């Protein structure tokens, strides 16, 4: 007879997600992507490969883009996390990168989109006025099977423009 395989022991972790603090009791092996999606029900973060290659699960951890499918949630106690839901404008509408994706037809099925939005948000923080080559380079770590990337690269440029425009 084998031992009971228990996953019962949990660790208390405090995550601030999109400005809201959550205290969660999680098993040590719970991935950040699952904690966000299924414990906090922020399903905007998508999982396309669960091995760190596609970038669909990208979120910002203390401002830096990271792959939430490769992180254990308990390792991020105290971290500030931004997901695609947190890239909206203050009134809950589309934020500049999201608006740019809409205008440029930079999404089709939308499954990869959240990872691009977070990645580009962080990129434009560092480089507010990229060239087209830089824009292409910036999104070259994320997979999209639908768009062929042409319009995503355009959306990076357009998002940079939108972010420079004074908010009315």
């Amino acid at each position: 007879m084998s031992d009971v395989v228990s996953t019962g022991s949990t660790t208390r972790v405090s995550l601030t997600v999109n400005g809201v603090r959550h205290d969660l009791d999680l098993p040590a092996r719970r991935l950040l992507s699952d904690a966000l999606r299924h414990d906090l029900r922020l399903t905007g973060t998508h999982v396309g490969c669960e091995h760190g290659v596609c970038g669909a699960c990208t979120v910002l951890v203390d401002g830096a883009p990271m792959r939430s499918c490769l992180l254990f949630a308990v390792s991020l106690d105290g971290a500030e996390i931004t997901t695609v839901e947190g890239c909206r404008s203050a009134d809950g509408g589309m934020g500049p990168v999201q608006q740019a994706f809409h205008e440029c037809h930079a999404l089709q099925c939308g499954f990869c989109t959240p990872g691009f939005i977070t990645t580009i948000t962080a990129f434009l923080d560092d480089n507010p006025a990229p060239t087209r080559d830089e824009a292409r380079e910036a999104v070259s770590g994320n997979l999209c099977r639908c768009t062929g990337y042409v319009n995503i690269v355009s959306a990076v440029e357009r998002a940079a423009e939108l972010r420079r425009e004074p908010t009315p």
Partner: protein
Amino acid sequence: MTTRMVGEPVKRVEDPRLVTGNGRYLDDLGHDAFEVAFVRSPHAHARVVDVDVTDALDVEGLVAIYTYEDLVADEEEHGTRVAQALPLLIPHPTLTHGRTQHALANGEVNHVGEAIVMVVASDRYAAEDAVERIRVDYEFLTPIVGVEAARAAEHLVHDDVPGNVAARMVQETGDADAAIDAAPHRLELDLAIERSASMPMEGKGVHARWDADDESLTVHTSTQTSTSVRQAVAAKLNLPVDRVEVVTPDVGGGFGVKIVHPWPEEVLVPWAALRLGRPVKWTEDRREHFVSSAHERGQLHHVRVGYDDEGRLLGLSVKFWHDHGAYIPYGLIVPIITSTQLLGPYKPGAYRVEFESLYTNTVIVTPYRGAGRPQGCFVMERTMDAIAADLGLDRALVRERNFIQPDEMPYDQGLIFQDGRQLLYDSGDFPGSLAKLKELVGWDDFAAYREQARAEGRRVGIGMACYVEGTGVGPYEGGHIRVETDGTVVVSTGLTTQGQGHQTMLAQIVADELGVPFERIRVTTGDTRRFKYAVGTFASRTAVMSGSAVAVTARAVREKALRIASDALEAAVEDLEIVDGNVRVKGTGENGASVDLGAVAVLSNPLRYAFDEAAKRATQFAAPADPDKPPVAEGESPGLEASQFYSPPRSTFANGMHAVVVETDPDTADIKVLRYCVVHDCGTLINPMIVEGQIHGGVAQGVGGALYERMEYAPDGQLLNASFMDFLMPYASEVPEVEIDHLVTPSPLNPLGVKGAGEAGVIPGAAAIAAAIEDAEGITIRRMPISPSELFHLRLENQEAGS
């Protein structure tokens, strides 16, 4: 004045939801559902001798473990058919040895990844804990991997399928062999294309909920056909169809793999929900998608061709071998398409094509965007280039000389297409398209550029490829449109959406046909609660089929609105028009008498009860009515709504031509696409922005298929690169900018003049890129994809041959 919406690059209504993280994909549903994981075979070919679950029983959170025997017991107890083999979806008289898989293996596994045991647990973590502790004993059988091994047939995939041959099919027009033998010039070519796969970013997934009180089952599945899944699930579970609904949530890409149904999981997950009385969910992970969904493309071709001094085809004979994997649930669609669409825009003279569809111990092969056409296009276009090289003629000229001319349309190729109908091209202007392409890419000036690059030590080359794509296959699609009393227009069609912007595109059509503002239209697809009759989303058919269906439905609603409004406005129907959602007398402008469609909807539905303000206007004492007439006029029905279907006699045929410029590195043999030009004819463009997006995506998949993507099977049947780390899908850094020009030859077959656009972009990729590399290197290319290392070795072989 309302502007026409069809033809405008209208921004998508889907986007605001999807870009803000508010999409609802399969795994976004059912956070509290039980979750499923599978024990899948690690062996390509084996008998399952024993399954021992003892160690798994103590896993915390375990709910149930099912094997094939449980399915058999369930059949005896409840009359279900879950234990029986999955359906052969598309039978064909030549498919003499069709074999399909079981939802859980019944004693034999035929590819790595085939499901053997289903585990249900409180969540996926617990389910995988249990999976790890289940032991399966196997008796090994010899794996058959690749076309050569299947043809040799020293061992069999299925004991009762001699030669590993599921089907052998021949089509012929004229006497091709005689024509080739009599031709002044002849060539033979061996060509090969390797396996790739649809590989949507979202894998498959199923969520099922059984409502015991209502005795009804609701299934959400990431599918390309909800209506047919509904029928299949009801049949498998022995439920009245009436008690089953299938809803397609947002789908993260399909590209063909999700048209196959029912997948084992689409049967097993609903079955478990039914037996357990709790919601159950399965979300495919990426490795599962690699080893247990579907692949495509793998074929070997042998071509014999005869032609005259001008390069005109006199006879073409193609024999090819199609590796369809372990089972053949989707029938012969892919090789039939290859064998017919290979002809492209050309007149082949006499044509004979023969193929064998072969079993191997690998993942099944079912349509992936392009569905057999990229292979056919590769074969025909390589042949054209070989003829040009043989005769020393310009490659574009040889193509031009073989084109079907515009005045020969409609053109009958004399074959039977994948829908069982004639291969009859409805429209197209191939010389016109070629002229545009040559202009766009600068074909005639390229030789000078190549020379100049050579002088600088650079190697550049150009290639082109042409295709014709049968799109919009039948049998039918339908639409339902209802105008609500607040003027909202609710549209539904049964086929599904995987990112093509159907909600936007269909709303554009309805806006024009009905005369209502685009913003008032809400479109639902793929929900059997809303629309029960449909075929599915594949073969670039939505714009043609559902587009036409909602167009004719909108016309019916419009007629009904005008009939009702003509009473209210006391004007003849012929004198009325609908503008911006208002019915008014023509020529009276905005100030004339008018009635808005919401009010017409109220009038259409005479009521007894005033449950809201709008209803008040329709109650029996509210409006003076002719006391001698029934409240609902004879032949009418209440409600401003209609449902219509569109069923065309045969497919429409879109076409296009691509030209590619590549540069190859003289030292490293790295291959870079410098320019990618597309001329595209999909008939009337409903939304050019969406069409171009489809082309971009297709081109990226074409580039992937030409330069990067292949399924690396080891001889023992292990898929060596079953991850995104090793299966190289292109990133933005690998995909070129795409230059597009359109030629519009409307289809005469449907009310909108549209031809499909979804798959086109991918079709000529491998062919055009092979031609460009050949041009840059002066080395004959006969297999795709090609990696830098393969090109490097080709160079060495070539040098040796030359020295």
